[in-house]
């Protein structure tokens, strides 16, 4: 596995999970855009969701 890549994104994920605050970003999960993207069936148009925001608005910490 190390041969594939020396990077371990899971470690970072654990760190983010620990530092996350409950409820932050929950609103996103309720948006129509998110739901459509999440449940989209085979529509390539809807395959990509991009969350854009300034530094520190909490993009990484969306739950």
């Amino acid at each position: 596995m190390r041969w594939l890549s020396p990077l371990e994104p899971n470690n970072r994920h654990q760190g983010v999970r620990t530092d996350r605050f409950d409820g932050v970003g929950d609103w996103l999960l309720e948006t129509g855009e998110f739901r459509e993207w999440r449940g989209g069936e085979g529509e390539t148009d809807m395959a990509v969701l991009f969350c854009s925001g300034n530094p520190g608005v909490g993009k990484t910490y969306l739950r």
Partner: protein
Amino acid sequence: MIDSLCDQGGEEDVAVAAFYCDFLSQEEQTINNVIGAILKQLVGRGGVAKGLREAFQKAKREVGGRGPRLADLMGMLRTAIASLPQVFICVDALDECLPRCLPALLECLRDIGRESPSTRIFLTGRPHVKEDIQRCFTKMVVIPINPNTDDIRNYVETRLDRDADPEAMTTDLRADIVRVILEKISDMCVGPFRISTPLVMHAYQLCHVDSSLFRSISALF
């Protein structure tokens, strides 16, 4: 996000692979390493293991051994994705990706999306990378993330609850701290996760109150 996708997956067999781009590890985060890291999270679940072993053995026989080629990684990634019913790929902070790697990374993701239309790709980044992403995904959905007052309040309150010196806190002081931070953040268009020392100094000057407020705010961040 990753945890929500996993939780919402429920009964379905949902595979989520995630990658966090990081300014501080840019040099390590080459396109091969990033694709490899995504692949690593998806193999073992599907039937890629055999192909992977073969590619590894072959590479080992070459002089000194070598890392996997991008084409090999992409091939294995395609196989892995094809063997799974639903795959989500999340890449955080594309603006922190090495500029020379970003176009290649986006192209790889685009190719995956084309071949496997059920794959869902979740990306985050500062607004300026939007155009780069749009070049590859003309019809992507964009959700702007703005500092949300409730999120900020929630964050500051939680930090205050964890205050190491709770005896020094009063209701008024607490209200002042929350107010000052909320005011300052909405002025500066930055989020609560980026509250820095200069901002704390600013907040202090702004409220002209006694030093206990300053100490309390400083202690938070």
